[in-house]
């Protein structure tokens, strides 16, 4: 792959880093990342991935922009209210970097479509906001063997980690074997969320995805990063593979995708 003179200039601050170099930048430009969720986490994450020159960025979201989203979902503007989030996101990325091919999916991700959706991508980013979708993405990434960058937020708390398909790493089910019963955890929509919080966690997710593609540094695989925005404290917990995990443990009972709405509703 030959860089154009414009590309050399655009990516100069990456190329000059020994950890990236021309080869790393080429790798980014030929990589494919699937971003699931174009909201608070997806916006900063997608912005940085686009600016970094990720070659193909798939974005999945069926929702439209609401005025109450704009406090945190920074790639949508006031004029985008009512538009599909993926359309607004595509415009924002293309404004920054025409090198990126943005592929939009205006659909709800589910057991029927997820395997096909993720199979063409190198890295999957979970920027969603609900438990059924998180378990769905985790299980699909396990079966199709895709690296998964996890980020989650609530009020002032953030969590991030990386689940890798190879090695002894854990999966989301090793971390939380089952979701909380419905109603116990209020959603961001009703409980509120500090607008900057998804910015911090979403940027960390972009950073981890880029490291996975470049093969540099040490990812959060095996570590759970906890961010407390009120205390301004980052803590790190060990995240181990659970031998009794129903998905990736020694005697798995989840052998294919299940009905995740039911899985999350039926609890307790």
């Amino acid at each position, binding site marked *: 792959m030959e860089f154009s003179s414009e590309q050399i200039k655009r990516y100069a601050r990456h190329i000059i880093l020994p950890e990236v170099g021309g080869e790393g930048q080429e790798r980014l430009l030929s990589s494919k990342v699937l971003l*699931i*969720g*174009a*909201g*608070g*986490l997806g916006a900063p994450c997608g912005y940085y991935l686009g600016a970094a020159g990720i070659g193909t960025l798939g974005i*999945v*979201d*069926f*929702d439209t922009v*609401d005025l109450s*989203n704009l406090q945190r*979902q920074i790639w949508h503007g006031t004029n985008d209210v009512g538009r599909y*989030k993926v359309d607004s996101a595509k415009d924002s990325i293309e404004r920054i970097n025409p090198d990126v091919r943005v592929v939009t999916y205006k659909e*709800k*991700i589910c057991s029927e479509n997820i395997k096909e959706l993720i199979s063409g991508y190198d890295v999957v980013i979970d*920027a*969603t*906001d*609900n*438990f059924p*979708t*998180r378990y769905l993405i985790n299980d699909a990434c396990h079966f199709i063997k895709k690296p998964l960058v996890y980020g*989650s*937020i*609530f*009020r*002032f*708390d953030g*969590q991030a980690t990386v689940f890798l398909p190879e090695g002894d790493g854990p999966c989301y089910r090793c*971390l*939380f*074997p*089952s*979701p*909380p019963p*419905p*109603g116990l*955890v*209020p*959603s*961001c*929509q*009703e*409980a*509120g*969320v500090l607008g900057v919080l*998804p910015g911090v966690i979403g940027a960390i997710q972009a950073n981890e995805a880029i490291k996975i593609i470049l093969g540099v540094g040490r990812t959060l695989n095996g570590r*759970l990063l*906890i961010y*407390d925005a*009120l*205390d301004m404290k980052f*803590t*790190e*917990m*060990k*995240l*181990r593979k659970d031998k009794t995990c129903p998905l990736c443990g020694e005697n798995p009972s989840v052998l294919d995708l299940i009905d995740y709405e039911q899985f*999350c509703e039926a609890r307790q």
Partner: protein
Amino acid sequence: MAIKVRIPTPLRTLTAGKSEVETSGTTIIEVINHLEKNYPGIKERICEQNDQVRRFVNVYLNDEDIRFCDNIKSAVKDGDTISIIPAIAGGAGEKKKFYLNYPQEAIKEPLIYLAGKNYNVITNIRSASISNDIGIIALEIEGGPEEIEKAVKFFESNGVTVEPIVLDVVE
């Protein structure tokens, strides 16, 4: 030196907003019981009735998940830090929730009561911000689809803007 327990934001309503509290005990379960004494209600948020930690909550002793130590019997000593980490999704909305935006003139009307009285629905306020001139309420409405629709129409006919809080994949 005592044992520190880090409290996640959802549980800070029980600790008067404190992000870190001091407790004592020689095992995790003793620490949790001690915590319950000082902050009633916190134990049931962390443990099942049989004392085991709920499956959507993780308890860490320093940086180690207690499930990979001796679980609730893991030994604790002075200077240790215990962290409670709940599963968070950024969302987890249910399907029949609405945002009600009240116009100033409707704030003093008992509309939620009337909706419950006139239609076969159960209402539950999940969050609200009400002042003299602004009223925004996140309301859960339970009931059959037709009854919910009637209740929504009732709010709207009283000048309240009703927006569904949709279960979506975005946060």
